[in-house]
């Protein structure tokens, strides 16, 4: 009985607060990540040789460095050279840039898979290069990149827990603090696990619904 009271009055409010911070981390990072990913992915395919080289370097490094090191660089590393970011800012920056590198590769793959005939037809109708990319190629590519990008967002939901390591106290951080104080590690982390499972499952089902809906317009 005591346990349940404890859970209701102490654990839940704290975890809900942590969940709020997590969502505040995930949403902006996902949006920035996709937008930046679309831009860099497109540049990777259609840019000048120099641009393509730079994007390639970006993708290599941001997919090659572990996310936790990237977060540490933004928060602790930059601090050493005089740039002080809040834990929240450093986390969102880190998540966005890392995520975008993965999205970029999915978009790039999707763009390359669109048949060349599509671009030819557009040009024959008088579309400029940019118009062709924006209105003909990219919409089709986004549909094909959806499973990959959707998956990446689900990874983001899970990796948002790393924000705790740069002292941004989100769901996992709150749980750790609560559990350290009460020694009820198993109970608290099981609840946290269930919350993440819920978030991930929700995101997955939204994703499949989006895939099916969008699929009716394109092949």
């Amino acid at each position: 009985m005591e346990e349940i009271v404890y859970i209701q009055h102490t654990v839940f409010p704290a975890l809900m607060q942590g969940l709020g911070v997590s969502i505040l981390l995930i949403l902006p990072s996902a949006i920035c990540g996709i937008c930046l990913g679309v831009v860099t992915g497109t540049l990777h395919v259609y840019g000048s040789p120099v641009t393509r080289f730079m994007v390639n370097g970006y993708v290599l490094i941001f997919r090659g460095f572990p996310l936790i090191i990237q977060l540490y660089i933004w928060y602790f590393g930059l601090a050493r050279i005089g740039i002080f970011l809040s834990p929240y800012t450093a986390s969102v920056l880190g998540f966005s840039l890392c995520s975008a590198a993965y999205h970029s590769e999915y978009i790039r793959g999707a763009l390359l898979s669109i048949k060349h005939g599509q671009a030819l037809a557009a040009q024959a109708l008088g579309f400029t290069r940019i118009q062709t990319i924006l209105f003909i190629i990219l919409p089709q590519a986004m549909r094909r990149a959806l499973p990959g990008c959707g998956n990446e967002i689900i990874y983001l939901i899970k990796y948002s827990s790393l924000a705790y390591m740069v002292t941004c106290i989100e769901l996992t951080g709150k749980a750790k603090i609560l559990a350290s104080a009460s020694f009820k590690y198993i109970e608290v982390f099981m609840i946290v696990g269930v919350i993440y499972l819920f978030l991930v499952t929700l995101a997955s089902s939204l994703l499949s619904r989006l895939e099916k809906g969008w699929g009716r317009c394109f092949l």
Partner: protein
Amino acid sequence: MTSDGITAIQEGFFYLLQGSWINLTVVVGAMVFGFMLGLPLALGQIYSGKTTRSIISIYVWFFRGIPLLVFLFLFYFGLVSFLDFNLSAFSVAIIVLGLISSAYQSQILRGAILSIPDGQMKAARALGMSDTKAIFYVILPQALRISIPAWSNEYSILLKDSAVTYALGVSELMSRANHVASRTYQHLHLYLLAGFMFMLLTYLGTRSLAALQKRLKIPGYTH
């Protein structure tokens, strides 16, 4: 690149390199453990009855849905207090990464096995092979070859995840970088060094798997 920074890098280089050995051990241990669990799970999901398949699906959903950090804390602080003996952070790291990897590897293997035309199984059965023999001698040799690129990806992910075990105090590459950084105050340089070391390890691992794939390649085989 300041001179302090370069000194710090020189100081920490071999210390970090030794730490990378721990990362590799954790990764290989987790991949092997993940395979030993993942293969029966994959076979169960394809060839077993409905109840077994549901249980396996739940297992996969569970281990793919919860963040690594949560599992690490849950196992290290939570379950270990449950048991009587003490597990080192290193062991917990391998077990947790292995369990999560088994969920992903089961899906990799399942996809590979399902991609093999069912004529192969039919021909094996027609020759009088039992299902077990058919799976072992005809299906798996092909499925394992098909899985190598996905394993390359899994290795890459596991290597980056091994840096998170720093949270449990495992003395691997990331934690050593932190250690030297706090001594020398050259955080940026050391984290960059650590990052590039991870990249190098990833490259070496994926190159090796690509070479393995080439060695095992069957002339003209396409699936």
